[in-house]
């Protein structure tokens, strides 16, 4: 445990610092949105449509006169809710499934792999677009669809790890020492297999944010007036050509920083959990 903290300290550099700061900002935005947002995120004010950034509206207003700053802050809730919950769901389902189909190899596990092959043979974005439009363009439906799309990714990752780990001599050694299947799976294999998955969780959250935003951007995700970053960029797309830059710029920046945050945290997790890196002293 001490070694773990020592390791964390050693890898905690500028990048990780930025990552954690961005995470803190987002958590504050989620928790305190009603207190920091100057306006309501969904109240339209046609009289103050498309105003450039000013003291009253720091980030300006959009076509229907909604305050962009307030919407960007509130959208953190929606975007992170969708991405974090979908990734957690995919993790909870994907990891045990991957462990089982990696450890026991029979017709059943082959069948599951075929299903995964099949899901992954579609371009993620295209399939997500079709599924959400079928299920209905609701926040939870987007989360469910993304969750389902991410399950094969986690399951495969774990499975690949399990397949290589179960051939390692220390598994044979554990068996000789009397470890049962369950003990081998959960005490020996899982802790060793989890490392790349933890990293993947962080990266997947970023991917989920991008996918959610993309879906909403083309009008296949959540709908107005829900504050959502991709949707807001989409709203500003037409104005961009006319030189109205603020409508699309700020929510886009929010996406960039949010995804960057999880990418940095993923890199950090990678550095901390890499067993090869530990041996260098």
């Amino acid at each position, binding site marked *: 445990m001490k070694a773990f903290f020592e390791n964390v300290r050693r890898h905690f550099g500028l990048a990780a610092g930025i990552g954690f700061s961005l995470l803190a900002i987002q958590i504050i935005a989620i928790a305190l949105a009603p207190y920091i947002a100057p306006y309501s995120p969904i109240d339209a004010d046609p009289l103050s449509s498309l105003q450039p950034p000013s003291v009253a509206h720091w980030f300006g207003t959009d076509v229907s006169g909604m305050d962009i700053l307030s919407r960007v802050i509130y959208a953190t809730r929606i975007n992170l809710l969708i991405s974090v919950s979908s990734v957690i769901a995919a993790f909870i389902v994907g990891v045990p499934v991957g462990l089982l189909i990696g450890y026991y190899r029979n017709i059943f596990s082959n069948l599951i792999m075929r299903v995964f092959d099949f899901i992954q043979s579609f371009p993620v974005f295209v399939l997500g677009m079709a599924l959400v439009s079928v299920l209905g363009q609701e926040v939870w439906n987007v989360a469910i669809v993304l969750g389902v799309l991410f399950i094969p990714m986690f399951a495969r990752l774990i499975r690949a790890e399990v397949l290589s780990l179960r051939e390692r001599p220390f598994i044979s050694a554990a068996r000789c020492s009397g470890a049962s299947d369950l003990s081998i799976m959960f005490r020996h294999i899982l802790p060793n297999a989890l490392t790349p998955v933890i990293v993947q969780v962080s990266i997947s959250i970023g991917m989920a944010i991008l996918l959610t935003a*993309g879906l909403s951007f083309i009008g296949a995700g959540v709908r107005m007036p829900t504050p959502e970053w991709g949707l807001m960029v989409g709203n500003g797309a037409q104005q961009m050509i006319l030189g109205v830059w603020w409508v699309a710029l700020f929510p886009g920046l929010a996406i960039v920083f949010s995804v*960057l945050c999880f990418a940095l945290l993923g890199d950090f997790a990678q550095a901390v959990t890499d067993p090869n890196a530990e041996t260098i002293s």
Partner: protein
Amino acid sequence: MFGVMFATFFLIRLLPGDPALLLLGNMATPEAIVSLRERLGLNDSIWVQFVRYLDNVAHGDLGTSIFTSNPVLQDLLERAPATLELICWAMLATVIIGVAVAVTAVVRRGGAVDRASRIYGLAAGAIPDFWVALLLIYFLFYLLGVAPAPFGRIDALLPPPNRITGFYIIDSLLTGNWDAFISSAGRLVLPVLTLTIVNAGALMKLTRTVFGDVYRSDFIRHARASGLPESVIVRSALRNSLPPIITLVGFLFGFLLGAAVLVETLFAWGGLGQYAVQAVVNSDYPALQGFVLVAAAFILLVYMTVDILYEFADPRIKV
């Protein structure tokens, strides 16, 4: 492929609402709906319908688009070259830039390219492609005016070149149509740039890892100890890094198809992606179904090509 058809079929069966009602609109009389259901065979068992659907697909019948009233297959074929042209050029640029940057970063470790590539690799994965496109449009078209307007593949006043390959650039070259060539090449710049900026990052990161590992491996060290010139060493290391690069390129093709949906919409490209978005917005399910089917078929084709190339790239893999 069978699984894909199976899924797209049941996907559409899961739709809330009656297809007959959708086709006829809200003003339809109950009698009309009943007769249309009869004609569409919607009263038969779901398996009968599925078999019929398979039969239709086998004969190239993907149904009729509700929005354009054309056969879906015809719509798709008309639009496919636009998307393919976009994707192919973007892929080419991605591979060249991604690999070149990665190799330079590894060979000149700690140099300017190395440091810049680290920042780029991190940022490229975080930037949404549609937002990049908007920024490019704003800066290069609105502010600087160096790029053409984001309205289609070619200037609206110019007739498109005669169709040979369907790729405007190649067709206009073949027919010696210089105006069309310049216009279509210009129009390609922004969307290709968008896709390349976003995708080259991923390829660059992977290549840097893979090539970096190979470049530090025992056999490269031994090659250097044997006095081989650096150019031979880099080539041999790159050759060894090919298999994972090929895999990623295959994967990126699929990803590009998804990204094309967004980018085409922004640039009014008139390709498959834009068609799919229209289908979603207009609840045009036969069109959406057809697009998903074609996308999956395309990916399947790409993956098959990848498998074949993989065997060439790595003699350890048996055919």
